[in-house]
């Protein structure tokens, strides 16, 4: 097979690492390198999608080669990632003015990791891409490393997703266990769905947990909230086509495994639906635009997850993929636009952005298109893709369908709020509401406009993916034979609901309350803190104390600063090595004192002792034969 898939991973990785190693010396060339490479990657991805199908692998571990597999889903995803990454990097030219070597370097490595995740054909490669993606996301979110909050947010993101990643490690073990005695690449993704019983469930659970963590599904959603501390281009890429979306993608790709495990598919579907509803509600009640978008990411990806979990009527992979792509374009657009405003106006508070769409009309226009798509307004992209998923859901379970529909209404609600806010007339005190985060530039750079326009076009037009002819072919490409199209009734229902909700929200949107539970995303982070982080830290401190007690001579030694090395040994047991050893040592010392007592210096006592001991020796010989 061709070298193309490898290039897709290797090129950005190499270029990114080169930038990172070169450091500040590459500051000037960094942006150019980044964009050119991203461009090449986008082209290559498109080329890949157009031409290549199949598997390629190199020897890696003894039980598993490192393989890349290009199928319809992977090709589509890779292309999406490539294009959006390119557009985001272009926009970033305007926003990132210092530390470009670091930004573009990390971004390229990130893209490489995403590509590896997308294409990986086995758990090693998948996990490699998966974890590097997490690590680079840490560095990207914490890009402004002098701000403790940004750094903490990065740490939270990495730790949360890594906690979920453990699932993949377990899945790998299960794969190895379930293929005992078999040859070949035992960690291949395609083998997961045919694992024998206990291991199948372990693998399914592991994959589900890992994906839920990355996709910010319940209960892991909170990391996404903090991740907004990163620069807007980072958010735009992380939350649209990469990182978060990868969780959904993985589930789509491994839907066979979920289906084979049975319960896993159902759980997945319900997880997606629940997240769509819960995080939709959270999004509706935010005050901060980026927080709103973040919550909506979770909610929208809920539909991808839902799609992955659907098994009835041949599944919903086509709808999920469409939802994935449409959401990627839409969300990238919205984040970039939010970033542009943040950059220009210095605020991301909804209250501060009132009328922003009128101040910067192009941005306002594309933002509105994006928001409308997000709202599921016909005939925009997300309307169609969501309904494709929901149609299958209805075939499987009515409650699931209802939940999905509720999520859609909520989505229309928060999208409507955004539209209402940005399209409202500029208030007189607008200037006073700006610059809440940082001093804005009050200027939108030309370089930012083109990508926004492209994305807006995509967000609007990707609905074509649901045109019957396109959708059918897409379904075939994705390996879905018989596809259930949403009925006109369903389409009308969701469209109608969306219109109504948007209208309502745009009208009353500024009166929406922001309860604490919504602002804190159900207090998930606090809960994680209380249930996991603090106990672990407490346990760590406790264990450290135990450990120190056990070995405190060094500590105590530092404190007392005794200098006389001749007394080392004495100090060793004065302060104790550890309890047991200390007792042994002090016991030995006592014994040692005792051992010197016979040596009295008095000959007659030597005589007496020797006589008695010799007597004992005779007795010993007499008694023991």
């Amino acid at each position, binding site marked *: 097979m061709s070298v193309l898939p490898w290039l897709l991973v290797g090129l950005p990785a190499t270029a990114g690492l080169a930038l990172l190693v070169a*450091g500040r010396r590459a500051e000037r060339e960094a942006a150019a390198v980044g964009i050119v490479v991203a461009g090449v990657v986008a082209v290559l991805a498109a080329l890949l999608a157009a031409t290549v199908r199949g598997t390629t692998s190199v020897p890696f571990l003894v039980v598993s080669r490192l393989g890349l597999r290009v199928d319809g889903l992977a090709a589509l995803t890779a292309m999406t990632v490539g294009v959006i990454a390119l557009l985001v990097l272009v926009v970033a030219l305007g926003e990132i003015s210092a530390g470009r070597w670091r930004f573009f370097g990390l971004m390229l490595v990130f893209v490489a990791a995403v590509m590896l995740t997308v294409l990986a054909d086995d758990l090693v490669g998948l996990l490699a891409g998966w974890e590097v993606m997490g*690590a680079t996301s840490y560095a990207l979110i914490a890009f402004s490393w002098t701000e403790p909050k940004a750094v903490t947010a990065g*740490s939270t993101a990495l730790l949360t997703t890594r906690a979920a990643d453990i699932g993949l490690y377990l899945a790998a*073990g299960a794969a*190895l266990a379930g293929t005992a005695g078999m040859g070949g690449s035992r960690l291949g993704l395609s083998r997961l769905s045919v694992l024998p019983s206990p291991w199948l469930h372990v693998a399914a659970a592991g994959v589900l947990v890992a994906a839920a963590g990355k996709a910010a599904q319940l209960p892991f959603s909170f990391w996404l909230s903090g991740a907004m501390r990163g620069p807007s281009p980072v958010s735009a890429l992380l939350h649209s086509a990469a990182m978060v979306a990868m969780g959904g993608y993985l589930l789509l790709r491994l839907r066979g495994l979920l289906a084979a495990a049975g319960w896993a598919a159902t759980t997945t579907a319900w997880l997606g639906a629940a997240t769509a509803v819960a995080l939709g509600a959270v999004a509706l009640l935010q005050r901060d635009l980026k927080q709103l978008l973040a919550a909506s990411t979770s909610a929208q990806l809920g539909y991808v997850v839902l799609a992955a979990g659907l098994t009835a009527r041949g599944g919903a992979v086509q709808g999920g993929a469409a939802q994935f792509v449409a959401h990627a374009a839409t969300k990238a657009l919205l984040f970039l636009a939010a970033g542009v405003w943040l950059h220009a106006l210095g605020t991301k508070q909804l209250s501060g952005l009132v009328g922003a769409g009128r101040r910067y009309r192009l941005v306002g226009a594309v933002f509105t298109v994006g928001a409308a798509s997000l709202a599921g307004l016909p005939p925009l992209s997300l309307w169609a893709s969501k309904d494709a998923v929901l149609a299958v859901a209805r075939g499987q379970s009515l409650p699931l369908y209802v939940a999905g529909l509720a999520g859609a209404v909520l989505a229309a609600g928060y999208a409507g709020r955004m539209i209402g806010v940005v399209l409202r007339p500029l208030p007189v005190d607008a200037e006073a509401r700006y610059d809440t985060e940082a001093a804005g530039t009050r200027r939108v750079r030309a370089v930012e406009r083109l990508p926004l326009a492209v994305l807006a076009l995509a967000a609007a037009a990707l609905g074509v993916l649901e045109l019957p002819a396109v959708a059918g072919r897409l379904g075939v490409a994705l390996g879905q034979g018989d596809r259930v199209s949403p009925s006109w009734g369903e389409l009308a229902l969701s469209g109608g609901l969306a219109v109504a909700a948007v209208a309502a929200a745009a009208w009353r949107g500024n009166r929406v309350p922001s309860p604490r539970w919504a602002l804190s995303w159900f207090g998930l982070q606090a809960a994680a803190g209380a249930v996991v982080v603090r106990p672990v830290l407490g346990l760590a401190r406790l264990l450290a104390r135990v450990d120190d007690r056990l070995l405190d*001579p060094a500590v105590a030694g530092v404190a007392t600063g005794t200098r006389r090395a001749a007394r080392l040994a004495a100090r060793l047991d004065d302060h104790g090595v550890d309890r047991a050893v200390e007792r042994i040592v002090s016991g030995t010392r006592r014994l040692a004192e005792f051992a010197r007592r016979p040596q009295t210096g008095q000959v007659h006592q030597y005589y007496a002792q020797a006589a008695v001991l010799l007597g004992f020796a005779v007795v010993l010989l007499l008694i023991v034969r």
Partner: protein
Amino acid sequence: MLLSLLVFLPVLAAVVLVLWRGAPVRLVHVVWVAVSVAEVVGFVGLWIAYARGAGRSGANPYAFDTDRAWIPGAGSGYHVGVDGLSLPLLAMTAVVFTAAAVYSRRESRDPLQFAALFLALETTCLGLFVALDLILFFVFFDLSIVGMYFVIAGWGHGATRAASALKFFLYTFVGSLALLLGFIGLYVAADPHTFDMVELTRQMPLAGHGASATLVLLAIAVGLAVKTPTFPFHTWLPPAHTDAPAAGSAVLAGVLLKMGTYGFVRITMPMLPDAWRGLAWLFVVIGVVSALWGALVALAQTNFKRMIAYTSVNHMGYILLAVGAAGLLGGTDATARSVAVAGAIVQMVSHGLITAALFLLAGVLFDRGGTYDMDRYGGLAAVAPRYAALTAAAAFASLGIPGFSGFIAEFQIFAGSLPSATVATAIAVLGILVTAGLFLIALQRMFLGLRRDGRPFADLTGGELLAIGPLMLLSLAIGVFPRLVLGVIDPAARAVVVLVSR
């Protein structure tokens, strides 16, 4: 012969240096580095030759085999040789010592003796990994303790260094005696009596002697566990590291700890297979406890070097988990177990490289700031970007991010151990989360945020970069192209699994 020459070249150089007392300091360092580099070249060459099948004869699994009488009365000989198990460790040893040599360019306290001591220490470490005779193994084991004692006591820092050194010495020496008792048990059980490892592996002298085999195994295991160190025996490690000089710590953690884990794979598993299988659950439990205990205690540290020291306990715990799981035969196939063992071996190499780098970096920290207390720093990334970047890379490598060797090791350990020790592995794998957390906290404390004070903090010098950079590059190379090492490790791991399953 060639192998022996490579092993003893450093100590010969040390003798020359000591005898040549008036040598200028610069020249001493040049000699030291040159010899170290020569060792690296030598062992890489040996590796390539081995991979091509050179140096082997007949069915002997060991290449470059030399077997001479030494203490014939006690059935002990000078028997050395290499295989896929020892070669990676030998190369890693040579590399770590080279890094230590390059790093120590500016050692001002008795540089000549320092160099000589390290060269001698290098011979003991190399010797241990080539030894195919238990007594030879033991000799090198003990000599390494003596050498390291002087490194810590003589060139360490802190008022407690002598106490720490003594503690290190006492602990590990006690361990070594338990080891010796176990060896004697093996020797006596063999017929004819012998300390020869190849012969003992062939004979499995205590097979079928339930209780005595278990006792012998426990004796050896205690000795090795102290050195490794695993959970209840690890308390010597943090003070020893805290007070040791940077190069000493790098060697101690990078190389000396591997002596323990290497012993498990080289001695206990092949020679006492049934006892090992009987006690495998114990090693798994100790591995899991060590991994979590080390990670959690490290999480609570504020002293950078102590923190790294505790992460060593964590990483060694994984190795124990893997070798223990390889002894649980139920429900798995040999290949899965060999994955665990291969992971353990890669982990030895990987941990050697990464931890050596981290300790050298800690040395830089102490050199600039005079303390390891992470809270005394902050925002260093602004003034020392190269240092920050390299430390961050090392930290991520240590926490097992793919791309570096640690991932290859830990992935194989977890994947390979899970089939036989499912619950234990599922618990142990939580360790990667804790290590991630602690390294992130450490990075945040030292490098990120705003600077706490305006004290100058010079970035890495070229020399330091030259010492530490190659370690990370090697880790990266193994992480991206694991076949580099797995090519020899895999067969060795399979062989171990076959031996332990007998």
